[in-house]
């Protein structure tokens, strides 16, 4: 059976069109991808490399392999006899950041869920208004929002004056420059991140299911817990990650509201590039932060694919 040396003309033109489309696609996509890969992915790889180098005396690095940065993370090297002693100082900063981020995420969920639910059950017109109201603060400068919060809650701030004036407290509440202050700052900063995905999930919810549950004698809060919440789970996970990840690496809130005492990971990394000038250690701290974030994202991806599987079934 002789095979045709050239494909039929129709197939050829089809083929040429497909090639043209491929070329057009590559041409359109490559600039954005190149910029992101060149100016973000490559720098991230460099950070990983830097974390295994030796710090230079005045910042920068010396190109000599060393795991000292990671060792330094857990141990303190004795200056005299070069022995290693376990030192939890840096672990504590990571632990504190983790707890702060966790508390902020939980608080955002506790405030955000009722809010998102309420907005999702409003009539169409009002719904849009409220979504806009929640969205706008997200776009307002993070620095300015934190300054506004600091202005309000500091010892001599309007909040304390109002409380003192009303006779509710005898001495100004010390909120600013404490862990609580940082927590409030984080919640304030990232609350819209929680509300919006929750809203998106609840908005799609079929409220006939609530009626069905009620007909089966489920009580109100049981319905919320066993019907609405499980179906809103993708939104809960997305919102939690959107709050947790940036909270973990937050810089501005702990810097301004923590008053430099309540360091978080973000400040620790920043310090290595500004103050104490240990680039490899700063890089190692960043790599560890990125690893935690990656793990969180993996959880998210797995959860999403599980949800998709459930939908298919």
């Amino acid at each position, binding site marked *: 059976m002789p095979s045709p040396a050239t494909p039929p003309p129709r197939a050829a033109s089809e083929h040429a069109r497909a090639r043209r489309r491929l070329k057009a696609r590559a041409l359109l*996509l490559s600039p*954005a*991808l190149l910029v992101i890969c060149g100016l*973000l992915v490559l720098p991230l790889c460099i950070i990983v490399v830097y974390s295994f180098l030796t710090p230079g005396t005045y910042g920068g690095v010396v190109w000599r392999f060393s795991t000292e940065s990671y060792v330094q993370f857990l141990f303190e090297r004795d200056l005299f006899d070069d022995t290693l002693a376990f030192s939890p100082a840096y672990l504590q900063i990571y632990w504190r950041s983790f707890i702060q981020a966790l508390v902020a995420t939980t608080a955002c969920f506790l*405030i955000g869920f009722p809010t998102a639910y*309420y907005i999702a059950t409003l009539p169409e017109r009002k719904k849009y208004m409220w979504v806009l109201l929640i969205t706008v603060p997200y776009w*307002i400068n993070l620095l*300015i929002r934190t300054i506004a919060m600091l202005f309000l809650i500091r010892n001599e701030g309007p909040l304390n004056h109002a409380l003192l004036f009303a006779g509710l407290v005898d001495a100004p509440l010390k909120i600013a420059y404490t862990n609580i202050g940082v927590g409030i700052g984080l919640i304030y900063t990232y609350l819209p991140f929680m509300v919006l995905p929750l809203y998106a999930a609840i908005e799609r919810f079929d409220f006939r299911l609530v009626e069905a549950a009620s007909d089966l004698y489920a009580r109100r809060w049981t319905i919320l817990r066993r019907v609405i919440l499980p179906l809103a789970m993708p939104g809960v996970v997305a919102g939690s990650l959107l709050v947790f990840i940036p909270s973990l690496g937050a810089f501005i809130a702990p810097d301004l509201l923590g008053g430099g005492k309540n360091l978080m990971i973000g400040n620790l990394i*920043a310090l290595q590039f500004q103050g104490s000038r240990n*680039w490899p250690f700063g890089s190692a701290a960043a790599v560890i932060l990125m690893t935690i974030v990656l793990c969180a994202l993996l959880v998210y991806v797995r959860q999403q694919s599980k949800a998709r599987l459930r939908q298919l079934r």
Partner: protein
Amino acid sequence: MKPPRSRDLKRYPGFGAVTWACLVFLYGPLLVIALYSFNEIRSITVWGGFSLHWYAKAFNNELIQRSTWNSLVIALCAASMATTLATAAALAVIRHRRFRARETCIGIINLPLMVPEIVTAIASLVFFVLVGIPLGVGSIVLAHTVFCIPFAYLPISARLEGIEGYYEEAAGDLYADSRRAFRHVLLPMLMPGVLAGFMLAFIISLDDFIITNFVAGPGASTLPLAIYGLVRTGLTPEINAVSTLLLLVSVIFVILSCLLGRKRYPAGH
């Protein structure tokens, strides 16, 4: 009496109150800072009368003037570049529904959103120093462009999703080649999305502090950097005034961009 009961079922006691509290929490501090920026005197307990004194003082501050100018130039450059790149990428990703690396491409475009900002900041710094790009306005523009791409991409791709393919097909049937179909049919329809994307990118660049802080180098200052510098020396009504102005710019831009992005094509749908 079925309807009222089912309506009641959806409502939970206290949820409305939480929502209003949430609103107060989100806007309260901003309103307070705006209010005090108009206070004649420095005190925060006494109202000394309405005055634009602090605004005048802020406008005459040379550092603030210079950094505002820098901020605007940087935001304009970064947003333009990011919007161009994002538009091209969106055209490729949305118009060609199925191709092998599609998900990966979308993932890369959104990558700047997933990396903690502080990590992006130091990675950019290390990269610029290593490659030998001088730190200054140029390096800020480059770093901002990367960070702005996903923000510009979002409304553009959403808009493009809403435009059915048959508009271009119709243009093709009327003997328009693909370039003219794009220029005269698709682009005008896509324009609101592109504008919305540009505005979001502009705001993101204008507002950025962390990345800018690291890649700015000693010479170049932007408005957020200047404000941060001022805050370090103590909260003044002058800061309140600048913050209120910047806040207003953000609010106006976001509302405009939301309105632009909302309209579906064809209009009135």
